[in-house]
C-alpha cells in the first residue's frame, strides 16, 4: 500500500476532527459566554469612544509613577543580574562546578523563573512583604533570572578556548583565567542582555501595579476602579511613550556595547 493512497483519506478525517473541535470551542466559549444583549446595544462602542479622548490634564500627575516604574525596572534588572550570575555559573555546561547535578539545578532554576508569570511572582511577593515598589522589584528580578542566566550561560559555553590556554600557559591561576580569559569574552553579551531585560522590565513593571506593586500600573488600576476611561487612556499613552523611549535607549546602549 503506497503513501499516496492513504494521505487524502487521513487528511480529510483530520480536517473534519479539527473543524468539530473548533466549532465546539467557539460555541462553548464565545456563543454561550458572551453578553449578547449588551453587544447588541450601543454600549461597547460608547465605552471605546470614551477611551479615545484621553484626559491630558492627568499627565503631570503621572510623571512620578512613570519615574517609579523606570526605577523599579532598573533596580530589578540589577538585582536580576546579581541573582543570574550564580545561576549561569551552575547552568553553563563547561564551568558548572558539580557536573550534571549542578547543571540540572541551574537549568531548572532558569525554567522556574521563566515559567511563572511576573504577575504571579508579584502576588507572591506582595503577600510576603506587603504593598509598594519592593515586591514589584523582587518579582521582576526573579522573573529576569531565567532569560539573563540562560543567555549568560550560553555566552560562557561559547567562549573561545584560545585565550584561556594562553593564560594557563603563562602560569595564570584559575582566577586569572576567569578574569582575563573568560570575562572579557562574555562581558559584552552580559551587558547587552541586561539592557535588553531592562527594556522588557519597563513593560512588565507597568502592569505590576495591578496587584499593588506600585508604578504606572497602580495609576492604571486606580483609574480603572473609578471607571474613568479618559484617565485610563492617559495612563496607557504614558506607558506607550515610556516603552518607546526605553526601547530607543536600550537599542542605542546595546549597539554601543557590541
Amino acid at each position: 500500500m503506497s503513501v499516496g493512497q492513504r494521505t487524502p483519506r487521513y487528511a480529510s478525517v483530520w480536517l473534519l476532527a479539527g473543524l468539530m473541535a473548533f466549532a465546539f470551542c467557539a460555541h462553548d466559549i464565545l456563543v454561550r459566554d458572551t453578553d449578547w444583549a449588551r453587544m447588541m446595544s450601543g454600549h461597547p462602542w460608547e465605552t471605546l469612544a470614551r477611551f479615545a479622548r484621553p484626559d491630558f490634564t492627568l499627565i503631570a500627575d503621572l510623571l512620578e509613577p512613570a519615574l517609579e516604574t523606570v526605577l523599579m525596572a532598573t533596580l530589578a534588572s540589577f538585582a536580576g543580574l546579581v541573582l543570574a550570575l550564580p545561576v549561569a555559573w551552575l547552568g553553563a555546561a563547561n564551568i558548572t562546578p558539580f557536573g550534571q547535578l549542578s547543571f540540572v539545578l541551574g537549568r531548572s532554576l532558569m525554567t522556574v523563573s521563566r515559567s511563572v508569570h511576573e504577575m504571579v511572582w508579584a502576588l507572591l511577593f506582595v503577600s510576603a512583604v506587603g504593598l509598594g515598589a519592593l515586591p514589584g522589584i523582587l518579582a521582576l528580578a526573579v522573573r529576569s533570572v531565567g532569560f539573563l542566566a540562560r543567555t549568560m550561560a550560553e555566552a560562557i559555553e561559547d567562549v573561545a578556548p584560545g585565550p584561556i590556554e594562553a593564560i594557563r600557559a603563562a602560569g595564570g591561576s584559575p582566577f586569572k583565567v576567569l578574569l582575563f580569559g573568560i570575562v572579557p569574552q562574555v562581558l559584552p553579551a552580559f551587558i547587552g542582555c541586561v539592557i535588553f531585560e531592562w527594556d522588557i522590565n519597563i513593560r512588565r513593571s507597568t502592569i505590576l501595579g495591578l496587584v499593588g506593586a506600585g508604578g504606572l500600573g497602580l495609576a492604571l488600576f486606580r483609574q480603572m476602579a473609578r471607571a474613568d476611561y479618559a484617565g485610563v487612556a492617559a495612563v496607557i499613552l504614558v506607558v506607550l511613550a515610556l516603552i518607546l523611549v526605553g526601547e530607543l535607549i536600550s537599542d542605542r546602549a546595546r549597539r554601543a556595547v557590541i
Partner: protein
Amino acid sequence: MNRDNPERLEAVMTPARSTVLEIRGLEARYGERQVLRGIDLNVARDDFVAIIGPSGSGKSTLIRCINRLVEPSGGKILFDGVDLLPLAPPALRRARRDIGMIFQEFNLVERMTVLDNVVMGRLGDTGTLRSLTRLWRNDVVEEALALIERVGLAEHARQRADRLSGGQRQRVGIARALMQRPKLLLVDEPTSSLDPRIARDVMTLIREVACERHIPVLCNIHDIDLALAFCTRMVGLQHGRARFEGQPGSIDRASVQHIYEAEVL
C-alpha cells in the same frame, strides 16, 4: 634507527651542561588512543629545534605536554633540572612562567589592547588587585612597550587586538611570550594561519628575538622548507615516535618524504 646511533646514545647519557629541556620516554594518550609513544629529546641553550611531521603525528600534543596543557601519561620532562610531571598546581604555574608559548591561532584576548595582551605575559607575577584594576606597574608597562616596539608594532600599542591583521597579531603573541622572560619558547605552528610571505617574516622575527636573548626554541612546523630554513636541528615525528633527528644539512630528503607519505595514504 636513531636509537641505535652510538653518538646520540652518548648524548642521551651525558647531556651537555647547557641543556635546558630534557624529555625522556614521554608518553601521552587521549582515552584509548596512544598519541606519543616514548619520545626522547634534548633542547640546549642555543637550539632552534623544529618538530616536523604530518598532522596527527603528535607534534601539538608533544609541545603541550611540556608545560602540561596536556597531561602526559608517562615519562620525564626535566626543565632546568626539575621534573615537571610530579609538580602540584602552584609549582607548575611557577614553572610555566619560565616557558613562553606562541600559538597557531595567536590566542590573544581580542577585546583588549595590544599593550594589555603583552602585559598578560607577566600575569603569573601580578597581584590580584592589580589584575582586577589593570593598573600595571610602570616598569612592567615600559618593558611591554619596548617589546611591542621590538616586534614592530609601536604605533599599535593602544589599539584593540581585534583591529590587527594576522601577522600583526602573531607579533603580539611573540611579544607576550617574551614578556615572560622565558628560559624556553614553545612555538606551535606559528605560521599556519598566515600567508607565505608573512610566515617568513614571523619565523625570522622569532629566530632573531630568540638569538638576541639566548632562548632555546622548540617549534612545531608543518612546512618543511620553513623548518629547513630556520632551525638548527630537526626532529621528524610519525605516529607518536621520533623517526629521525639531525641538522638541516644532514637530513635526507627521502626520509622526510617518507614520514609525510602516510598522510597522503
